[in-house]
């Protein structure tokens, strides 16, 4: 189809403006993080200022931010690893085995994807309290083992990526089923788990609701809680709070820039196949 310049130029301008609108908040967050609170209150500056180092010192001196970072990395990495590993394992069983109840069990997984996440919230918290898990990271990490979307995603992938002959020859060599999964399946699906891992990581890193009701010891706070409470740990200090936001978003931003194609493909694959 012929695309004339008369069409291309106006559309390009529109898209550039839109892109500007989407990235402007990112720029402005960074800009505010380089200003002192007085400067922010007096003029809400547009251009970057000179207080970046000051703000950084203030941010790390109370230790809350550093401990929040460590906590967030711990929770996000562990829950991502669990999601990826157990989704691959469950997905593998559904993709490559025939067993009694297979259909019912898999339909069950699909059905759980439709249940709103808030439904069990009230009792979940009560249950966590009874298990003595309040103020621990367990309730943020352990449920990652049962990720319905992840299972669905890995089943689709493994069905296509792993030839049955490969499994057969390994079995003839006397490989046990668990070793077969660990030594042969995991390496093959590793690249595919990247997208799933990214989605899981973002979800865990940005999670606010659950940590905010489960954790009440500031030393256990994850990053979103720390950033939100920076104003109460110290006096309300905007520059420092925005710097916290910048540093808290940085890992996701880097991950996204490095893997944006893969992440977007992963999100899409879950929807288009479903």
């Amino acid at each position, binding site marked *: 189809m012929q695309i004339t310049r008369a069409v291309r130029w106006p559309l390009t301008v529109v898209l550039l403006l839109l892109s500007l609108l989407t990235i402007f908040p990112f720029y402005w967050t960074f800009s505010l993080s380089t200003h002192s609170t007085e400067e922010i209150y007096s003029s809400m500056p547009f251009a970057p200022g000179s207080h970046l180092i000051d703000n950084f010192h203030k941010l790390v001196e109370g230790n809350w931010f550093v401990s929040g970072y460590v906590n967030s990395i711990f929770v996000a990495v562990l829950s991502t690893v669990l999601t990826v590993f157990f989704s691959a394992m*469950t997905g593998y069983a559904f993709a490559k085995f025939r067993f009694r109840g297979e259909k019912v069990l898999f339909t069950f997984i699909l059905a759980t994807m439709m249940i709103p996440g808030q*439904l069990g919230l009230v009792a979940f918290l009560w249950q966590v309290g009874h298990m003595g898990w309040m103020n621990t990271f367990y309730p943020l990490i352990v449920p990652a083992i049962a990720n319905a979307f992840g299972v669905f995603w890995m089943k689709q992938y493994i069905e296509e990526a792993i030839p049955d002959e490969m499994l057969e020859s390994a079995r003839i060599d006397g490989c046990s089923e668990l070793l077969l999964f660990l030594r042969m399946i995991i390496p093959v699906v590793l690249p595919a788990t990247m997208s799933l891992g990214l989605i899981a990581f973002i979800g865990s890193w940005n999670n606010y609701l659950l940590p905010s009701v489960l954790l009440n010891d500031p030393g256990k706070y994850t990053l979103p809680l720390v950033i939100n409470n920076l104003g109460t740990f110290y006096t309300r200090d905007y520059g420092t709070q925005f710097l916290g936001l910048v540093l808290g978003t940085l890992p996701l931003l880097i991950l996204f820039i490095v893997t944006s194609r893969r992440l977007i493909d992963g999100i899409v694959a879950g929807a288009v196949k479903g």
Partner: protein
Amino acid sequence: MAATDLVKEAAAVGTDRRRPRRLRLAPYGFISPFYVVFIVFGLLPIVFTFILSFVDWDGIKEIRWVGISNYIHLFQDKTFLIALKNTALLILFTLPSQILLALIIAYILHMGLVRHKDFYQTLIFLPYITTPIAIGMLFSALFDWKYGLVNSVLTHLHLVADGIPWLQSPGYSKPLLAFILDWKYLGYTMVLLMAGMKTIPKDIYESAAIDGASMLDSFWRITLPLLKNIMTFVVITSIIGGFQIFEEPLLLYSSGASGDQGYGGPNQSALTIVMYLYQSAYKFYRWGYAAAIGYVLAFIILGCSLISMRLMSRRG
């Protein structure tokens, strides 16, 4: 595929005498961690919540069985009805605008009407990774009445004499939240629609062009009808997500430079269902009541999903 089925069949029926037991039991071993964890942390809470929704309990005193009175109270509770209306309005403000915009941009990028498709796609998708905290802090700073950038630009350009009370006036809360949610999710909706467009064979467009169809004709007659599946997915997941909006309205109105606007924003104009659920449990300690809100919410979501599925399958 046929080979898979044969192997699977052999394993299931146990015709292969050398290793039937192992192949029969292994899959159960593989899937059991998922189901154990799901039952403990997914299914049990859902069942417990259902039981809780029939009791009166503040977390300390004795649990009292009250039958369906939580549900009856809920529909006489003004605050709940406000939250329900707010949430529905927010979805109405957000969903159509987002899908329309995403559809247009996806079409422009997919058809290659501009160069550097990946560049735009990446930038527009970027807000999807932001944390709700960032959204609260950033947009309350942008739209702050006294100090905000938006008002300072507007007054400098002499478009308004005084700043607009974006966060203080209840009338602005829903358009503002819709704008924020659109900002965050536009890229996500767009890439889903683009993926749907990729599945439409190119030669349909080519033969339509030979028949003299314009770009716009192709969009209405080819792209739109063939996007039905992915569109259904987008609408339903947006409704499911939309009814659960919680973090953005909560954080937008609790971190402003000009001070808090209180829980739920001015005049509770941004109080959503999940915010009320959370408040009932954690501020008022009405656990049974909060559980009932959870179940009513689930039924509303189920109902809306079914209705939209029906509507979408009827059209075209």
